[in-house]
């Protein structure tokens, strides 16, 4: 056993106001090359540690070890995924870049939406923390993604929350649902950000690994874009917002533990607590700083805290930075330098300010009563030097910390079990034996579907979110996409949708990722917006499992191919790995968010019927594609092949929906996805409580399928639209001209308070509503 490194002296440490540590300085490290460091406890692999020593030409100090270990973690370095993610950049054409102002690599991508306006958006995961402490985990997930948006120079204008829970009746699910939903609401509502959409899926595969993804979108003028770089030698570096505590270093508490420093009590919080009030003030304060043009570069503090902010700012700028770490304002004065560098305390930002602007900067922070401390300055030495009370504890090339982390080509192979699964289609399976036939059975099946956990109304959840705040929400739940007005003068605005289907991806990860993009793209087009850009959050199991790694590789390949085919670039996103319990990974869940633009959001198309007598058209064709469907899921079957993604068709469908919306040819549109035509019809009716008479025969005859298949199949590139009588000819001409199949299947009947599937069955809307809206309250109160 080697001698412990003197990181902190417990005897001195008892006076918390005077943190005088015996510090592991660079000088000390150079003089004690044989001291063993707890790199393994900090998550570094043997080869990674050796690489650090090689880079530095000596052993790292405790503080340097802290920095490298967090920055080279999977979460921060993307070491398992980087090689694959490159495809998002490689497959982008110049044409796709047309609207891109800032691409992958910054805190969030920025997209030009015209008239000098830009939008930035990104989705991120907070899966594991939300399982441990659902409320705070989900809340700080929202907080983190919103800070990414602020740091681009934008005003955040909306959030969305794609969620995955375990089985709805599992005893632990209520704890997670209550905590996570109120955490997302508690934080987002307090920030004044309308929640405009998301997803809720229940599946036992997520039991120990709920997925909590959060998307934020912000708006800015082109000239307001801010980047995370520290340029201008002599410019000052400032840390502001909340004080630094021991948050998020629980797992790495080894830095304060015995192997490092015998006798020191390790009291580090296991979870981070968010303070949405401080973040709201930070938003307004940052926007005022931007407006006054007093920050040169800015970076939010998320995972890896000050380690990340200093090394990224420095390496993206003039290459050097000098910081005095004792200047950091602490909530917990017992923190060691390494812990301060690793802390993930929320609601903090770091900025670079010219000396002339220091006074103006301080005046704005004082106005908002935000605490700040000047940590140091930008240099051109190419080194990141961090001192503790004048002694150097970090002396590194910041690029080696921020960008030159390890990259792994992890082995992957197609799982052998997949052939068997793919061969086991739903049609003809045992679970399909009692396929509903005849009017009463079909009717019951529709009610069962619409009451099922995944297809039921999510109102119990979404009514806990503020969708009105800011006064610009043009569409929100339960419409297909959320729509936000950007410019009050012109009505310029954006639409957003997030989608993923883990079952499809399980059956075929390549196709599943394409289907996720296809659905989000279709949802955005259904609202009438032109899709422009993509963000994604890739939720998978362990990359060290070659089968999971294969799922991941296939998903990235599928998504990047599909982006190219649809002409929409990925602008940013997030990878969440190790979502597995006891060796069982979650379904591959590539959550895809698509952003679309409207010249005038007044033209948006909502997803419910309104006007009596309008004609209902079904666009697209239907095949027997029940594998992986909600219906098969209800029958406990998962096998076969997911529906086929036909992206050329998706693109043409989108053009029709966008043109129809712009030219006033449709009053309502609803895409067909999970739950197929049955779900689309029921949701269109329940939205404004307006019934319809619908006939299935013509479509069944054309597509060669029975009524059950037409209602429940999940074939892609389909939508139902309601067309005013006066527009029917124009609309059908447009479909014909584009060779897109469209059949008039019915008529909106505002007087009938029922959905009448002619020659099959009639269901009163009240009965449908009861089934659709009763499920979540029954489980969650």
């Amino acid at each position, binding site marked *: 056993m080697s001698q412990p490194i003197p990181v902190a002296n417990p005897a001195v440490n008892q006076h918390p106001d005077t943190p005088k540590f015996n510090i592991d300085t660079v000088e000390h490290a150079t003089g004690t090359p044989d001291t063993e460091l707890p790199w393994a406890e900090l998550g570094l692999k043997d080869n990674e540690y050796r690489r650090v020593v090689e880079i530095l030409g000596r052993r790292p100090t405790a503080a340097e070890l802290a920095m490298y270990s967090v920055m080279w973690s999977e979460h921060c370095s993307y070491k398992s995924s980087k090689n694959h993610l490159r495809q998002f950049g490689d497959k982008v054409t110049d044409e796709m870049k047309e609207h891109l102002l800032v691409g992958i690599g910054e805190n969030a991508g920025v997209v030009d939406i015209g008239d000098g306006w830009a939008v930035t958006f990104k989705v991120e995961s907070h899966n594991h923390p939300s399982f441990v402490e659902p409320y705070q985990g989900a809340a700080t997930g929202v907080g983190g993604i919103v800070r990414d948006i602020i740091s681009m120079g934008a005003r955040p204008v909306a959030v969305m929350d794609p969620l995955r829970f375990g089985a709805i009746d599992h005893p632990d699910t209520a704890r997670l649902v209550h905590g996570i939903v109120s955490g997302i609401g508690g934080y987002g509502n*307090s920030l004044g950000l309308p929640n405009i959409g998301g997803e809720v899926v229940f599946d036992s595969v997520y039991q120990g690994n709920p997925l909590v993804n959060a998307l934020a979108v912000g708006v800015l003028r082109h000239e307001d874009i801010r980047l995370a770089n520290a340029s201008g030698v002599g410019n000052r570096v400032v840390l502001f917002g909340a004080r630094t505590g021991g948050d998020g270093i629980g797992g790495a508490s080894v830095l304060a533990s015995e192997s490092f420093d015998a006798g020191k009590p390790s009291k580090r919080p296991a979870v981070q607590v968010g303070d949405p009030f401080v973040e709201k*003030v930070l938003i307004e304060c940052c926007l005022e700083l931007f407006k006054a043009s007093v920050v040169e570069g800015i970076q939010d503090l998320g995972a890896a805290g000050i380690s990340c902010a200093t090394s990224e700012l420095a390496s993206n700028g003039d290459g050097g930075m000098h910081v005095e770490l004792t200047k950091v304002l602490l909530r917990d004065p017992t923190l060691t330098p390494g812990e301060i560098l690793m802390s993930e305390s929320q609601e903090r930002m770091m900025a670079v300010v010219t000396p002339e602007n220091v006074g103006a900067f301080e005046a704005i922070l004082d106005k908002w009563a935000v605490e700040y401390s000047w940590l140091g300055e930008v240099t051109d030495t190419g080194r990141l030097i961090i001192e503790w009370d004048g002694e150097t504890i970090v002396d590194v090339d910041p690029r080696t910390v921020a960008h030159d982390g390890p990259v792994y080509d992890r082995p992957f192979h197609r799982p052998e079990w997949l052939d068997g699964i793919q061969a086991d289609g739903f049609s003809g399976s045992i679970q399909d034996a009692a396929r509903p036939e005849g009017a009463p059975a079909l009717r019951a099946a529709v009610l069962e579907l619409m009451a099922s956990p995944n297809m039921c109304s999510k109102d119990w959840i979404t009514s806990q979110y503020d969708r009105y705040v800011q*006064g610009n929400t043009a569409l929100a739940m339960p419409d297909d996409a959320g729509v936000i*007005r950007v410019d009050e003068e012109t009505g310029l605005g954006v639409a957003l949708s997030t989608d993923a289907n883990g079952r499809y991806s399980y059956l075929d990860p390549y196709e599943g990722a394409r289907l996720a993009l296809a659905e989000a793209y279709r949802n955005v087009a259904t609202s009438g917006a032109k899709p422009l850009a993509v963000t994604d959050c890739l939720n998978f199991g362990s990359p060290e499992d070659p089968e999971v790694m294969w799922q991941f590789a296939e998903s990235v390949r599928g998504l990047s191919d599909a982006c190219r085919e649809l002409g929409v670039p990925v602008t940013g996103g997030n990878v969440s790995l190790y979502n597995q319990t006891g060796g069982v990974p979650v379904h591959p869940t590539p959550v895809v968010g698509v952003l679309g633009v409207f010249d005038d959001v007044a033209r948006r198309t909502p997803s419910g019927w309104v006007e009596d007598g309008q004609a209902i058209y079904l666009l697209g064709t239907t095949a027997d594609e029940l594998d992986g469907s909600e219906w098969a899921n209800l029958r406990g079957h998962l096998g076969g092949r997911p529906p086929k993604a036909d992206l050329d068709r998706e693109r043409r469908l989108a053009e029709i929906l966008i043109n129809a919306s712009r030219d006033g040819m449709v009053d309502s549109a609803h895409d067909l996805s999970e739950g197929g035509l049955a779900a689309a019809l029921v949701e269109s009716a329940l939205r404004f409580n307006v019934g319809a008479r619908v006939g299935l025969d013509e479509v069944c005859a054309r597509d060669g399928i029975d009524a059950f298949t037409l209602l429940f199949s999940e074939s892609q590139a389909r939508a139902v639209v309601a067309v005013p009588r006066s527009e029917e000819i124009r609309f059908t001409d447009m479909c014909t001209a584009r060779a897109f199949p469209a059949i008039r299947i019915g008529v909106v009947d505002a007087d009938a308070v029922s959905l009448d599937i002619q020659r099959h069955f009639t269901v009163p809307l009240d009965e449908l509503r009861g089934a659709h809206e009763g499920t979540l309250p029954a489980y969650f109160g």
Partner: protein
Amino acid sequence: MTETPLIGAAPTFSTGSRADAAQGLSGARIGVITFPGTLDDRDAARAVRIAGGTAVALWHADPELAGVDAVIIPGGFSYGDYLRAGALSRFAPLMERIIQAANARTATARLPVLGICNGFQILTESHLLPGSMIKNDHLKFACLDAKLRVENNATAWTTDYLPGQEITVPLKNQDGQYIADEKTLDALEAEGLVTFRYVGGNPNGSRREIAGISNAAGNIVGLMPHPEHAVESGYGPDAASGRSAGTDGLGFFTSILNTLVGGTK
């Protein structure tokens, strides 16, 4: 545009005195106060503009009222709703001024004040209005379109409504349950100070379905629902006139403008 200061003019809060002074409306300066954590300040200002008035931004730490003719305390989570909703904001420097001005000795000098949601909570914490808000009976944040009955249109902020008129405005809060002791409730009822009542279901357990109240002078009104989110077709609650088309909240803002402008005549 001239911005005639109207404080000191004679606001009479009856429907009869409403002046037709359209071009004078923009002369009315309505202050909208921002605390740290306020969320709906820009929405309230927009509502004032849509109604034809001039919105003036006020900062909680300002020492003076900047000559505004009326004040809106908007919704949000001032100071994070920490301790109790509205508790910490009540002590802001500008609130002291507002409390003085709203309670001025002579009726003509009393500053009209509207508190929406968190603003209502601040008004009760300031004792400008009786009672208090506690957590919703179902303990959840609730965002819904609330239907209200206008019980009293003789306040500075409700003259443009008809007595008994039913309006739909969004409601969104966690601590929206209005409570007061029985004596206070009886007095409110007896004096006609219950300004709005929830109809078609009580969304949060409020005593006697109370959604909003006023003081006896009628210059101070507080309510939990958000009229400023129902002023613009396309961004409001669903209505008979169309989806998201509800603009029933606009009456608050036209009422105050008409009250102020009418008073100058």
